[in-house]
């Protein structure tokens, strides 16, 4: 069985700041990490590999040469092979162009049974690439997967909703997007880290390696335009009411009347 896991290298948004003038992310000195939901996606693939014979897990990402780092991490967690789609022509891509590029690469890999992706990346938060990819490949998709089971060719998943979940059955090949409730990702292992650098390789594919036209990738093929980025104004400090319950309720009513809530 062949599983493909789509991952992304993202800035650790706990550490990131926005340039107040340009409105862009200040990436200098911000550590890059493997996108958290993508770790859950990889973990589910690795669990299938632990349970079954002949499971091949391939991780793929599109990004600059530095994205090699997150692919090595995936290899150190136990993935078998890694592909880095890296070309200046791919730069500046929005989700539309990214999914087009990934789809071309995945068609080249071919013959896959399951594609796992994280729900969304913590830098853009669009949650679009997974679903777009399934559409481009013409395969079924289930997003927000919180539980996964497989019985022969049939896959049964729970799809998380705001107030519950749906149970969905699908046939392979299928694309699933993972949320953090799906599993607890494993750590890299020490031996895995050494394998990732010494035994395994990260294949780099450029535009020339995949069947896609230059004007269908990168910035030019991206209909999205960022009008403005900004940091939302922080909310003002809340007011703590003090006193007996009766006094506090009286004050609360006054406040609410002043604000014309009641």
């Amino acid at each position, binding site marked *: 069985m062949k599983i493909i896991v789509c991952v992304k290298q993202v800035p650790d948004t706990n550490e990131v700041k926005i340039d107040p003038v340009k409105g862009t992310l200040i990436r200098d000195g911000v550590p890059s990490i493997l996108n958290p939901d993508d770790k859950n996606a990889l973990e589910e693939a690795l669990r299938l590999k632990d349970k079954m014979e002949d499971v091949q897990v391939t991780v793929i990402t599109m990004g600059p040469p530095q994205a090699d780092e997150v692919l*090595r991490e995936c290899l*150190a967690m136990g993935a078998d092979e890694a592909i880095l789609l890296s070309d200046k022509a791919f730069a500046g891509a929005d989700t539309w162009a990214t999914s087009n590029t990934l789809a071309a690469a995945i068609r080249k890999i071919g013959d896959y049974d399951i594609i796992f992706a994280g729900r969304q990346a913590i830098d853009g938060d669009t949650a679009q690439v997974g679903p777009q990819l399934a559409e481009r490949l013409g395969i079924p998709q289930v997003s927000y997967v919180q539980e996964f089971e497989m019985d022969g060719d049939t896959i049964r998943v729970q799809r998380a909703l705001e107030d519950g979940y749906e149970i969905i059955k699908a046939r392979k090949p299928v694309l699933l997007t993972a949320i953090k409730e799906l599993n607890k990702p494993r*750590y*890299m*292992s*020490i*031996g*895995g880290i*050494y394998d*990732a650098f010494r035994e395994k390789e990260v294949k780099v594919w450029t535009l020339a390696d995949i069947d896609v036209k230059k004007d269908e990738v990168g910035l030019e093929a991206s209909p999205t335009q960022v009008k403005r980025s900004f940091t939302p104004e922080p909310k003002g400090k809340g007011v703590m009411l003090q006193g007996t319950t009766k006094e506090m309720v009286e004050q609360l009513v006054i406040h609410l009347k002043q604000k014309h809530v009641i």
Partner: protein
Amino acid sequence: MHFQLTREQEMVRKMMRDFTENEVRPLAAEIDETGRFPMETVEKMNRYGMMGMIIPKEYGGAGADEISYAIAVEELSRACATTGVICSAHNSLACWPIWKYGTEEQKQKYLMPLAKGEKLGAFGLTEPNAGTDAAGQQTTAVLDGDAWVLNGTKIFITNGGTADIYVIFAMTDKSKGVKGISAFIVEKGTSGFSIGKKEKKMGIRGSATTELIFENCRIPKENLLGTQGKGFAIAMSTLDGGRIGIAAQALGIAQGALDETVKYIQQREQFGKPIGKFQALQFEVADMETRVNASRWLVYNAAWRKSAGLSYGKEAAMAKLFAAETAMYVTTKAVQLHGGYGYTQDYPVERMMRDAKITEIYEGTSEVQRMVIAGAVIR
């Protein structure tokens, strides 16, 4: 010459930090308080290849280099010195001598499960009357047919009772003195081998430190490790490597206490400002940082020399001496800079100061390290 870690070593640090923050730090205060051995952590360390790190893959290890190993012990010890020493004793004192001196059969039978993390290892050299004077072994081993018969008592054995496989030293020919000592592999559960008293310690309280008692304990003849009479040399070379592990543990304790201090002095306000704004305290932190960094490079240098196949006995002794004294210095300062809070168990520096002390004592006291260093310099 360059001072940059390899990508593997950087990734080992990242992985170890992630593991430590999530799996090790949350237990540190509790196992110190209760003195409970954290078996669940050992099982996790097994799973991720930390127990058998430096052993080649063909014997079930992770095949890591010595710097990665030092980084692993350092990172564990930043949060929990107990976990650091469990890892260090297993890797340096049990896996390594069997890998270095064991026969192929011994490696298959004993090293493989140790390095895969299926079994835990320990090392028994110290006796009530043979501490720094390790050559004064009173435990005896006598060949009787196809078995060695061991009699005697070992004390202060790290991982004692919890370990499955022990590297044990005993006198096989008292008339030959140091050259009459031999090394053996003893399995837990062997008749005549029992675990004695568990020590109540000042620090590293979650680690099991026990007596080992041998009363007519018969082990197979083929469990002699290395050749007869080479035991003392095996013990000394094993401790040379072990010192890198303990130096890394001391480094981790010092770094952990420094991290806590830097955080604390920026939060704690007195006289209307954070105490970290006072230059007197800034200078203390500067001295702590400098010593921690000096320790780190001594440790990594010794580790690098070991991986490179160069001599490392003196370098390991210097690393252990300096890192241990730094751990004591930094943790004492850390408690001081935390003031009264630092003396309570509400802050981890109190535990770290207690944990630091042992690094100046075990696997060769600071005095022994000075003897080793001086011996290498003054010939």
